Protein backbone atom coordinates (compact mmCIF):
# COMPACT_ATOMS: atom_id res chain seq x y z
CA UNK A 1 0.00 0.00 0.00
CA UNK A 2 2.71 2.46 1.03
CA UNK A 3 4.74 1.35 -1.98
CA UNK A 4 1.86 2.18 -4.32
CA UNK A 5 1.47 5.54 -2.61
CA UNK A 6 5.17 6.25 -3.08
CA UNK A 7 4.95 5.38 -6.78
CA UNK A 8 1.98 7.71 -7.17
CA UNK A 9 3.73 10.51 -5.29
CA UNK A 10 6.91 10.16 -7.33
CA UNK A 11 4.94 10.10 -10.58
CA UNK A 12 3.03 13.21 -9.61
CA UNK A 13 6.27 14.92 -8.66
CA UNK A 14 7.89 14.08 -11.99
CA UNK A 15 4.77 15.18 -13.85
CA UNK A 16 4.72 18.48 -11.95
CA UNK A 17 8.38 19.08 -12.78
CA UNK A 18 7.65 18.14 -16.40
CA UNK A 19 4.87 20.72 -16.59
CA UNK A 20 6.56 23.51 -14.65
CA UNK A 21 10.23 23.44 -15.68
CA UNK A 22 9.63 23.71 -19.47
CA UNK A 23 7.37 26.70 -18.85
CA UNK A 24 10.11 28.28 -16.74
CA UNK A 25 12.62 27.73 -19.55
CA UNK A 26 10.12 29.05 -22.10
CA UNK A 27 9.47 32.17 -20.08
CA UNK A 28 13.22 32.64 -19.60
CA UNK A 29 13.61 32.36 -23.36
CA UNK A 30 10.90 34.99 -23.93
CA UNK A 31 12.51 37.49 -21.59
CA UNK A 32 16.21 36.76 -22.19
CA UNK A 33 15.80 36.77 -25.97
CA UNK A 34 13.78 39.98 -25.84
CA UNK A 35 16.34 41.81 -23.74
CA UNK A 36 19.20 40.49 -25.89
CA UNK A 37 17.41 42.11 -28.83
CA UNK A 38 16.71 45.38 -26.96
CA UNK A 39 13.03 44.52 -26.44
CA UNK A 40 10.96 43.98 -23.31
CA UNK A 41 9.18 40.75 -24.24
CA UNK A 42 5.78 39.88 -22.77
CA UNK A 43 4.68 42.49 -20.23
CA UNK A 44 0.93 42.07 -19.71
CA UNK A 45 -0.10 38.46 -19.01
CA UNK A 46 -0.33 37.89 -15.27
CA UNK A 47 0.56 41.46 -14.38
CA UNK A 48 4.20 41.32 -13.31
CA UNK A 49 6.43 41.38 -16.39
CA UNK A 50 4.17 38.96 -18.22
CA UNK A 51 5.03 35.99 -16.01
CA UNK A 52 1.88 34.11 -17.12
CA UNK A 53 2.48 34.54 -20.86
CA UNK A 54 2.98 30.82 -21.48
CA UNK A 55 -0.13 29.96 -19.45
CA UNK A 56 -2.06 32.37 -21.65
CA UNK A 57 -0.48 30.75 -24.72
CA UNK A 58 -1.58 27.35 -23.43
CA UNK A 59 -5.16 28.57 -22.98
CA UNK A 60 -5.05 29.94 -26.51
CA UNK A 61 -3.80 26.63 -27.93
CA UNK A 62 -6.56 24.73 -26.13
CA UNK A 63 -9.20 26.96 -27.72
CA UNK A 64 -7.88 26.45 -31.27
CA UNK A 65 -9.46 24.02 -33.67
CA UNK A 66 -7.74 20.65 -33.91
CA UNK A 67 -7.36 20.10 -37.65
CA UNK A 68 -6.30 16.84 -39.27
CA UNK A 69 -5.61 17.22 -43.02
CA UNK A 70 -7.80 15.08 -45.28
CA UNK A 71 -4.83 13.43 -46.94
CA UNK A 72 -3.08 12.76 -43.65
CA UNK A 73 -2.58 9.31 -42.19
CA UNK A 74 -5.07 10.06 -39.45
CA UNK A 75 -4.01 7.72 -36.69
CA UNK A 76 -0.28 8.32 -37.04
CA UNK A 77 -0.80 12.06 -37.42
CA UNK A 78 -2.77 12.29 -34.20
CA UNK A 79 -0.47 9.99 -32.26
CA UNK A 80 2.81 11.70 -33.22
CA UNK A 81 2.75 14.53 -30.61
CA UNK A 82 2.51 11.99 -27.80
CA UNK A 83 5.49 10.06 -29.20
CA UNK A 84 7.48 13.27 -29.28
CA UNK A 85 6.48 14.34 -25.78
CA UNK A 86 6.42 11.23 -23.57
CA UNK A 87 10.11 10.20 -23.99
CA UNK A 88 11.21 13.42 -22.33
CA UNK A 89 8.78 12.78 -19.47
CA UNK A 90 10.29 9.32 -19.01
CA UNK A 91 13.81 10.72 -19.24
CA UNK A 92 13.04 13.36 -16.64
CA UNK A 93 11.94 10.61 -14.25
CA UNK A 94 15.42 9.08 -14.01
CA UNK A 95 17.49 12.27 -13.83
CA UNK A 96 18.49 12.77 -10.19
CA UNK A 97 18.43 16.18 -8.53
CA UNK A 98 20.14 14.55 -5.55
CA UNK A 99 20.75 10.82 -4.92
CA UNK A 100 17.43 10.77 -3.03
CA UNK A 101 15.39 13.31 -5.04
CA UNK A 102 14.84 11.25 -8.17
CA UNK A 103 11.74 9.88 -9.81
CA UNK A 104 13.12 6.39 -10.34
CA UNK A 105 16.67 5.32 -9.49
CA UNK A 106 17.57 3.07 -12.40
CA UNK A 107 20.96 1.25 -12.35
CA UNK A 108 22.07 2.25 -15.89
CA UNK A 109 20.23 5.54 -16.00
CA UNK A 110 22.75 7.28 -18.31
CA UNK A 111 22.15 4.64 -20.94
CA UNK A 112 18.41 4.74 -20.27
CA UNK A 113 18.19 8.52 -20.76
CA UNK A 114 20.11 8.37 -24.05
CA UNK A 115 17.94 5.52 -25.33
CA UNK A 116 14.68 7.18 -24.34
CA UNK A 117 15.47 10.65 -25.72
CA UNK A 118 16.34 9.06 -29.06
CA UNK A 119 12.75 7.81 -29.27
CA UNK A 120 11.46 11.39 -29.34
CA UNK A 121 12.69 11.84 -32.89
CA UNK A 122 10.23 9.14 -33.98
CA UNK A 123 7.44 11.59 -33.16
CA UNK A 124 8.89 14.12 -35.58
CA UNK A 125 9.34 11.45 -38.24
CA UNK A 126 5.77 10.21 -37.78
CA UNK A 127 4.44 13.77 -37.92
CA UNK A 128 6.36 14.55 -41.09
CA UNK A 129 5.34 11.36 -42.85
CA UNK A 130 1.70 11.35 -41.79
CA UNK A 131 1.09 14.99 -42.69
CA UNK A 132 1.21 14.15 -46.44
CA UNK A 133 2.91 17.48 -47.01
CA UNK A 134 6.17 18.06 -48.86
CA UNK A 135 7.46 20.54 -46.32
CA UNK A 136 6.62 18.23 -43.45
CA UNK A 137 8.37 15.31 -45.13
CA UNK A 138 11.46 17.41 -45.90
CA UNK A 139 11.53 18.57 -42.30
CA UNK A 140 11.20 15.03 -41.00
CA UNK A 141 13.99 13.81 -43.28
CA UNK A 142 16.23 16.63 -42.13
CA UNK A 143 15.41 15.82 -38.52
CA UNK A 144 16.23 12.15 -39.06
CA UNK A 145 19.53 12.93 -40.78
CA UNK A 146 20.42 15.34 -38.00
CA UNK A 147 19.58 12.85 -35.27
CA UNK A 148 21.64 10.10 -36.93
CA UNK A 149 24.64 12.40 -37.18
CA UNK A 150 24.51 13.78 -33.66
CA UNK A 151 23.47 10.72 -31.70
CA UNK A 152 26.96 9.27 -32.16
CA UNK A 153 28.99 12.17 -30.67
CA UNK A 154 26.41 12.43 -27.89
CA UNK A 155 26.78 8.77 -26.96
CA UNK A 156 30.58 8.94 -27.23
CA UNK A 157 30.71 11.99 -24.96
CA UNK A 158 28.53 10.29 -22.36
CA UNK A 159 30.57 7.11 -22.68
CA UNK A 160 33.68 9.10 -21.80
CA UNK A 161 32.05 10.39 -18.61
CA UNK A 162 30.79 6.93 -17.70
CA UNK A 163 34.29 5.60 -18.23
CA UNK A 164 35.76 8.32 -16.02
CA UNK A 165 33.24 7.63 -13.24
CA UNK A 166 33.27 3.89 -13.68
CA UNK A 167 29.48 3.88 -13.54
CA UNK A 168 26.50 3.91 -15.87
CA UNK A 169 24.25 5.42 -13.23
CA UNK A 170 23.70 9.19 -13.29
CA UNK A 171 23.82 9.29 -9.50
CA UNK A 172 27.09 7.39 -9.53
CA UNK A 173 28.59 9.69 -12.15
CA UNK A 174 27.68 12.81 -10.19
CA UNK A 175 29.05 11.24 -6.99
CA UNK A 176 32.36 10.49 -8.71
CA UNK A 177 32.60 14.01 -10.13
CA UNK A 178 35.49 16.22 -9.02
CA UNK A 179 36.32 19.77 -10.15
CA UNK A 180 39.24 18.28 -12.11
CA UNK A 181 36.61 16.96 -14.56
CA UNK A 182 35.91 20.52 -15.68
CA UNK A 183 39.26 20.46 -17.45
CA UNK A 184 39.62 16.76 -18.11
CA UNK A 185 36.17 16.31 -19.65
CA UNK A 186 35.97 19.78 -21.23
CA UNK A 187 36.17 18.62 -24.88
CA UNK A 188 33.52 16.00 -24.15
CA UNK A 189 31.34 18.65 -22.49
CA UNK A 190 31.56 20.87 -25.57
CA UNK A 191 30.71 17.93 -27.82
CA UNK A 192 27.78 16.98 -25.58
CA UNK A 193 26.41 20.51 -25.53
CA UNK A 194 26.66 20.98 -29.30
CA UNK A 195 25.14 17.56 -29.96
CA UNK A 196 22.37 18.18 -27.43
CA UNK A 197 21.42 21.48 -29.07
CA UNK A 198 21.41 19.71 -32.44
CA UNK A 199 19.24 16.89 -31.07
CA UNK A 200 16.76 19.43 -29.78
CA UNK A 201 16.66 21.04 -33.24
CA UNK A 202 17.36 24.37 -31.63
CA UNK A 203 19.09 27.20 -33.50
CA UNK A 204 21.76 27.19 -34.86
CA UNK A 205 20.77 23.59 -35.73
CA UNK A 206 17.09 24.22 -36.57
CA UNK A 207 17.15 23.18 -40.22
CA UNK A 208 14.28 20.68 -39.63
CA UNK A 209 11.97 23.59 -38.78
CA UNK A 210 13.70 26.29 -40.87
CA UNK A 211 10.73 28.57 -41.40
CA UNK A 212 12.29 30.45 -44.30
CA UNK A 213 12.78 27.24 -46.27
CA UNK A 214 10.23 24.60 -45.25
CA UNK A 215 7.53 26.55 -43.34
CA UNK A 216 7.72 24.73 -40.00
CA UNK A 217 9.07 21.37 -41.06
CA UNK A 218 7.27 18.36 -39.67
CA UNK A 219 4.94 20.54 -37.57
CA UNK A 220 3.55 22.56 -40.49
CA UNK A 221 0.14 20.87 -40.53
CA UNK A 222 -0.39 20.85 -36.77
CA UNK A 223 -2.76 23.15 -34.93
CA UNK A 224 -4.00 23.73 -31.42
CA UNK A 225 -3.05 21.46 -28.58
CA UNK A 226 -1.12 18.96 -30.73
CA UNK A 227 1.12 21.76 -31.97
CA UNK A 228 1.54 22.95 -28.37
CA UNK A 229 2.66 19.43 -27.42
CA UNK A 230 5.47 19.60 -29.97
CA UNK A 231 6.54 22.96 -28.53
CA UNK A 232 6.32 21.54 -25.01
CA UNK A 233 8.46 18.60 -26.15
CA UNK A 234 11.12 21.03 -27.38
CA UNK A 235 11.26 22.87 -24.05
CA UNK A 236 11.05 19.66 -22.04
CA UNK A 237 13.99 18.52 -24.16
CA UNK A 238 15.94 21.60 -23.15
CA UNK A 239 15.19 20.82 -19.49
CA UNK A 240 16.28 17.19 -19.86
CA UNK A 241 19.48 18.02 -21.72
CA UNK A 242 20.38 20.91 -19.39
CA UNK A 243 19.86 18.79 -16.26
CA UNK A 244 21.76 15.92 -17.89
CA UNK A 245 24.64 18.27 -18.64
CA UNK A 246 24.57 19.55 -15.06
CA UNK A 247 24.65 16.03 -13.66
CA UNK A 248 27.27 14.65 -16.06
CA UNK A 249 29.72 17.55 -16.37
CA UNK A 250 29.02 20.02 -13.55
CA UNK A 251 28.71 17.62 -10.63
CA UNK A 252 24.96 17.93 -10.19
CA UNK A 253 24.23 18.54 -6.51
CA UNK A 254 27.87 19.05 -5.51
CA UNK A 255 28.40 22.46 -3.96
CA UNK A 256 28.18 24.28 -0.60
CA UNK A 257 25.50 22.85 1.73
CA UNK A 258 25.04 19.95 -0.69
CA UNK A 259 23.25 17.96 2.05
CA UNK A 260 20.36 20.41 2.28
CA UNK A 261 20.50 22.37 -0.97
CA UNK A 262 21.73 19.69 -3.37
CA UNK A 263 18.54 19.72 -5.46
CA UNK A 264 18.81 23.52 -5.77
CA UNK A 265 22.37 23.23 -7.05
CA UNK A 266 21.35 20.77 -9.74
CA UNK A 267 18.44 22.97 -10.79
CA UNK A 268 20.61 26.12 -10.82
CA UNK A 269 23.33 24.48 -12.91
CA UNK A 270 20.67 23.19 -15.27
CA UNK A 271 19.14 26.65 -15.52
CA UNK A 272 22.51 28.14 -16.44
CA UNK A 273 22.87 25.59 -19.23
CA UNK A 274 19.29 26.28 -20.39
CA UNK A 275 20.03 30.01 -20.57
CA UNK A 276 23.20 29.17 -22.52
CA UNK A 277 21.10 27.19 -25.01
CA UNK A 278 18.76 30.20 -25.33
CA UNK A 279 21.73 32.52 -25.74
CA UNK A 280 23.10 30.44 -28.62
CA UNK A 281 19.74 30.73 -30.35
CA UNK A 282 19.78 34.52 -30.13
CA UNK A 283 23.41 35.00 -31.09
CA UNK A 284 23.99 32.60 -33.95
CA UNK A 285 22.51 32.14 -37.41
CA UNK A 286 21.25 28.81 -38.72
CA UNK A 287 23.75 26.40 -40.24
CA UNK A 288 23.26 25.00 -43.72
CA UNK A 289 22.36 21.32 -44.03
CA UNK A 290 25.80 20.35 -45.39
CA UNK A 291 27.59 22.44 -42.77
CA UNK A 292 25.64 20.56 -40.12
CA UNK A 293 26.82 17.17 -41.38
CA UNK A 294 30.33 18.54 -41.82
CA UNK A 295 30.41 19.68 -38.20
CA UNK A 296 29.04 16.39 -36.90
CA UNK A 297 31.28 13.95 -38.77
CA UNK A 298 34.50 15.92 -39.21
CA UNK A 299 34.64 17.83 -35.93
CA UNK A 300 32.45 16.36 -33.22
CA UNK A 301 32.97 12.63 -33.80
CA UNK A 302 36.79 12.88 -33.91
CA UNK A 303 36.73 15.19 -30.90
CA UNK A 304 34.51 12.79 -28.96
CA UNK A 305 36.74 9.83 -29.91
CA UNK A 306 39.80 11.77 -28.79
CA UNK A 307 38.08 12.56 -25.50
CA UNK A 308 37.21 8.89 -25.06
CA UNK A 309 40.83 7.92 -25.71
CA UNK A 310 42.09 10.57 -23.30
CA UNK A 311 39.69 9.42 -20.61
CA UNK A 312 40.63 5.80 -21.17
CA UNK A 313 44.35 6.49 -20.96
CA UNK A 314 43.98 8.61 -17.84
CA UNK A 315 41.77 6.04 -16.09
CA UNK A 316 44.27 3.29 -16.83
CA UNK A 317 47.27 5.43 -15.78
CA UNK A 318 45.65 6.70 -12.61
CA UNK A 319 44.41 3.28 -11.57
Amino acid at each position, binding site marked *: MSEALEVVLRSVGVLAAFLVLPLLVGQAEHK*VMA*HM*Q*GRLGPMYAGGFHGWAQLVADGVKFVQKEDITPTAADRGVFRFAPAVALVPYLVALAVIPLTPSVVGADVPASALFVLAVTAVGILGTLMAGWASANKYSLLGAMRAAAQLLSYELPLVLAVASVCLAAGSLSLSGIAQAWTPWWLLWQAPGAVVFLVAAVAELQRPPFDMPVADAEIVFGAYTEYTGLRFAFFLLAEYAGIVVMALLFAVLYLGGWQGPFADQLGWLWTLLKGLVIAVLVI*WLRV*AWPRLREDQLQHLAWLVLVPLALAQLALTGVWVVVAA
Partner: protein
Amino acid sequence: MTGSTNRRTSGGAIPGLLKGLATTAKTLGRPTHTAEYPDAPPHLPPRTRGVIALLEENCTSCMLCARECPDWCIYIDSHKETIPSPTPGGRDRQRNVLDRFAIDFSLCMYCGICIEVCPFDALHWSPEFEYSELDIRDLLHEKDRLGQWMPTVPPPPALDPGSAEPAEIAAANKPPRVPRGADAPTTARSAGGDRRERPAPPGKDEQ
Protein backbone atom coordinates in the same frame (compact mmCIF):
# COMPACT_ATOMS: atom_id res chain seq x y z
CA MET B 1 39.01 25.98 -51.11
CA THR B 2 36.17 28.48 -50.96
CA GLY B 3 35.79 27.71 -47.28
CA SER B 4 39.40 28.68 -46.62
CA THR B 5 39.10 31.95 -48.53
CA ASN B 6 35.88 32.75 -46.68
CA ARG B 7 37.61 32.07 -43.40
CA ARG B 8 40.43 34.44 -44.30
CA THR B 9 38.10 37.31 -45.23
CA SER B 10 35.73 36.95 -42.26
CA GLY B 11 38.44 36.31 -39.66
CA GLY B 12 37.42 32.70 -38.96
CA ALA B 13 34.36 31.04 -37.50
CA ILE B 14 35.27 31.13 -33.81
CA PRO B 15 35.88 34.92 -33.53
CA GLY B 16 32.60 35.52 -35.36
CA LEU B 17 30.71 33.23 -32.98
CA LEU B 18 32.27 34.88 -29.95
CA LYS B 19 31.44 38.31 -31.35
CA GLY B 20 27.79 37.27 -31.73
CA LEU B 21 27.70 36.10 -28.12
CA ALA B 22 29.37 39.30 -26.90
CA THR B 23 26.98 41.54 -28.84
CA THR B 24 23.87 39.84 -27.50
CA ALA B 25 25.26 39.80 -23.95
CA LYS B 26 26.03 43.51 -24.15
CA THR B 27 22.54 44.27 -25.43
CA LEU B 28 21.13 42.22 -22.54
CA GLY B 29 22.82 44.62 -20.11
CA ARG B 30 21.61 47.79 -21.79
CA PRO B 31 18.17 49.41 -21.39
CA THR B 32 15.60 48.33 -23.94
CA HIS B 33 14.29 50.47 -26.77
CA THR B 34 10.66 49.42 -26.39
CA ALA B 35 8.18 52.28 -26.06
CA GLU B 36 5.22 50.97 -24.05
CA TYR B 37 2.82 53.03 -26.10
CA PRO B 38 -0.67 52.71 -24.64
CA ASP B 39 0.79 52.92 -21.12
CA ALA B 40 3.34 55.64 -21.78
CA PRO B 41 2.49 58.53 -24.14
CA PRO B 42 4.76 58.58 -27.16
CA HIS B 43 7.32 61.32 -27.53
CA LEU B 44 6.36 63.08 -30.75
CA PRO B 45 8.44 65.81 -32.42
CA PRO B 46 6.69 69.21 -32.59
CA ARG B 47 6.16 69.06 -36.35
CA THR B 48 4.38 65.69 -36.22
CA ARG B 49 1.64 65.42 -38.83
CA GLY B 50 -1.08 63.85 -36.73
CA VAL B 51 -4.29 65.56 -37.73
CA ILE B 52 -5.35 68.87 -39.30
CA ALA B 53 -7.02 71.28 -36.86
CA LEU B 54 -9.28 74.15 -37.92
CA LEU B 55 -9.39 77.58 -36.28
CA GLU B 56 -12.83 78.47 -37.52
CA GLU B 57 -12.61 82.19 -36.70
CA ASN B 58 -9.72 82.62 -39.12
CA CYS B 59 -11.42 80.93 -42.06
CA THR B 60 -12.78 83.25 -44.76
CA SER B 61 -14.16 80.43 -46.94
CA CYS B 62 -11.71 81.44 -49.64
CA MET B 63 -11.62 77.80 -50.86
CA LEU B 64 -7.86 77.90 -51.50
CA CYS B 65 -7.30 74.78 -49.39
CA ALA B 66 -10.11 72.86 -51.05
CA ARG B 67 -8.83 73.76 -54.51
CA GLU B 68 -5.19 72.95 -53.76
CA CYS B 69 -5.96 69.64 -52.05
CA PRO B 70 -4.50 66.92 -54.33
CA ASP B 71 -7.17 64.36 -53.48
CA TRP B 72 -10.08 66.73 -52.92
CA CYS B 73 -10.81 65.72 -49.39
CA ILE B 74 -11.85 69.15 -48.07
CA TYR B 75 -15.51 70.11 -48.28
CA ILE B 76 -16.50 73.76 -47.75
CA ASP B 77 -19.99 75.27 -47.84
CA SER B 78 -20.54 78.97 -47.20
CA HIS B 79 -22.94 81.75 -47.89
CA LYS B 80 -22.62 85.52 -48.14
CA GLU B 81 -24.11 87.70 -45.45
CA THR B 82 -24.72 91.45 -45.77
CA ILE B 83 -23.70 93.61 -42.85
CA PRO B 84 -25.66 96.85 -42.97
CA SER B 85 -23.59 100.02 -42.78
CA PRO B 86 -23.23 101.32 -39.22
CA THR B 87 -23.59 104.91 -40.39
CA PRO B 88 -26.53 106.11 -42.42
CA GLY B 89 -25.64 106.54 -46.09
CA GLY B 90 -22.61 104.23 -45.77
CA ARG B 91 -21.96 101.22 -47.95
CA ASP B 92 -23.24 97.83 -46.84
CA ARG B 93 -20.50 95.25 -46.36
CA GLN B 94 -20.58 91.58 -47.35
CA ARG B 95 -18.78 88.74 -45.62
CA ASN B 96 -18.56 85.00 -46.03
CA VAL B 97 -20.09 82.82 -43.36
CA LEU B 98 -18.70 79.29 -43.09
CA ASP B 99 -21.49 76.73 -43.03
CA ARG B 100 -19.53 73.55 -43.39
CA PHE B 101 -15.84 72.69 -43.26
CA ALA B 102 -15.06 68.99 -43.39
CA ILE B 103 -11.93 66.96 -44.05
CA ASP B 104 -12.23 63.33 -45.08
CA PHE B 105 -9.27 61.69 -43.36
CA SER B 106 -9.88 58.47 -45.23
CA LEU B 107 -8.79 60.37 -48.35
CA CYS B 108 -6.31 62.81 -46.84
CA MET B 109 -2.70 61.95 -47.60
CA TYR B 110 -1.28 64.32 -44.99
CA CYS B 111 0.66 66.36 -47.54
CA GLY B 112 -0.07 69.57 -45.65
CA ILE B 113 -0.64 71.67 -48.77
CA CYS B 114 -3.91 73.04 -47.34
CA ILE B 115 -2.02 74.27 -44.29
CA GLU B 116 0.68 75.80 -46.48
CA VAL B 117 -1.74 77.67 -48.73
CA CYS B 118 -4.10 78.98 -46.06
CA PRO B 119 -3.45 82.77 -46.09
CA PHE B 120 -5.16 83.32 -42.73
CA ASP B 121 -3.63 80.54 -40.60
CA ALA B 122 -6.93 78.78 -40.16
CA LEU B 123 -5.44 75.29 -40.57
CA HIS B 124 -2.77 73.83 -38.31
CA TRP B 125 -0.95 70.54 -37.82
CA SER B 126 -1.77 68.83 -34.54
CA PRO B 127 0.30 65.85 -33.28
CA GLU B 128 -2.91 64.14 -32.12
CA PHE B 129 -3.16 60.76 -33.87
CA GLU B 130 -5.60 58.63 -31.90
CA TYR B 131 -8.73 59.16 -34.00
CA SER B 132 -9.12 55.79 -35.67
CA GLU B 133 -12.64 54.59 -36.40
CA LEU B 134 -14.21 51.20 -36.99
CA ASP B 135 -16.02 52.45 -40.10
CA ILE B 136 -14.13 54.29 -42.83
CA ARG B 137 -17.10 56.64 -43.30
CA ASP B 138 -16.65 57.92 -39.77
CA LEU B 139 -13.32 59.47 -40.76
CA LEU B 140 -15.11 62.42 -42.38
CA HIS B 141 -14.73 65.04 -39.66
CA GLU B 142 -16.80 68.24 -39.58
CA LYS B 143 -15.63 71.63 -38.34
CA ASP B 144 -16.68 71.04 -34.73
CA ARG B 145 -14.41 68.05 -34.49
CA LEU B 146 -11.63 69.79 -36.40
CA GLY B 147 -11.95 72.72 -34.00
CA GLN B 148 -11.62 70.41 -30.99
CA TRP B 149 -8.08 69.59 -32.09
CA MET B 150 -7.03 73.27 -31.97
CA PRO B 151 -5.94 73.14 -28.27
CA THR B 152 -3.54 70.29 -29.12
CA VAL B 153 -1.65 72.38 -31.69
CA PRO B 154 1.81 73.12 -30.31
CA PRO B 155 3.10 76.70 -30.33
CA PRO B 156 5.22 77.51 -33.36
CA PRO B 157 8.92 76.72 -32.91
CA ALA B 158 11.16 79.56 -31.73
CA LEU B 159 12.91 81.65 -34.37
CA ASP B 160 16.60 81.23 -35.03
CA PRO B 161 18.81 83.64 -33.08
CA GLY B 162 19.56 86.72 -35.18
CA SER B 163 16.62 86.26 -37.50
CA ALA B 164 14.37 89.15 -38.45
CA GLU B 165 11.46 89.96 -36.16
CA PRO B 166 8.17 88.32 -37.09
CA ALA B 167 5.93 90.63 -39.13
CA GLU B 168 3.35 90.92 -36.35
CA ILE B 169 5.87 92.04 -33.73
CA ALA B 170 7.59 94.46 -36.12
CA ALA B 171 4.20 96.01 -36.92
CA ALA B 172 3.27 96.31 -33.23
CA ASN B 173 6.59 97.96 -32.37
CA LYS B 174 6.32 100.57 -35.12
CA PRO B 175 5.19 104.00 -33.84
CA PRO B 176 1.53 104.54 -34.53
CA ARG B 177 0.72 106.60 -37.55
CA VAL B 178 -0.50 110.13 -36.94
CA PRO B 179 -3.93 110.66 -38.37
CA ARG B 180 -3.92 113.59 -40.76
CA GLY B 181 -5.31 116.84 -39.30
CA ALA B 182 -5.35 115.64 -35.68
CA ASP B 183 -3.27 117.17 -32.89
CA ALA B 184 0.33 116.01 -33.12
CA PRO B 185 1.21 113.58 -30.34
CA THR B 186 4.55 113.94 -28.56
CA THR B 187 6.74 112.11 -31.02
CA ALA B 188 10.42 113.09 -31.18
CA ARG B 189 10.26 115.21 -34.34
CA SER B 190 7.06 117.15 -33.49
CA ALA B 191 8.32 117.75 -29.92
CA GLY B 192 11.45 119.43 -31.34
CA GLY B 193 9.21 121.61 -33.53
CA ASP B 194 7.19 122.56 -30.46
CA ARG B 195 10.30 123.67 -28.65
CA ARG B 196 11.29 125.92 -31.50
CA GLU B 197 7.87 127.49 -31.50
CA ARG B 198 7.53 127.83 -27.76
CA PRO B 199 10.13 130.59 -27.15
CA ALA B 200 8.13 132.90 -29.34
CA PRO B 201 5.20 133.59 -26.96
CA PRO B 202 7.46 134.85 -24.09
CA GLY B 203 9.11 137.14 -26.65
CA LYS B 204 5.64 138.46 -27.47
CA ASP B 205 5.00 138.98 -23.72
CA GLU B 206 8.21 141.02 -23.39
CA GLN B 207 7.15 143.18 -26.23
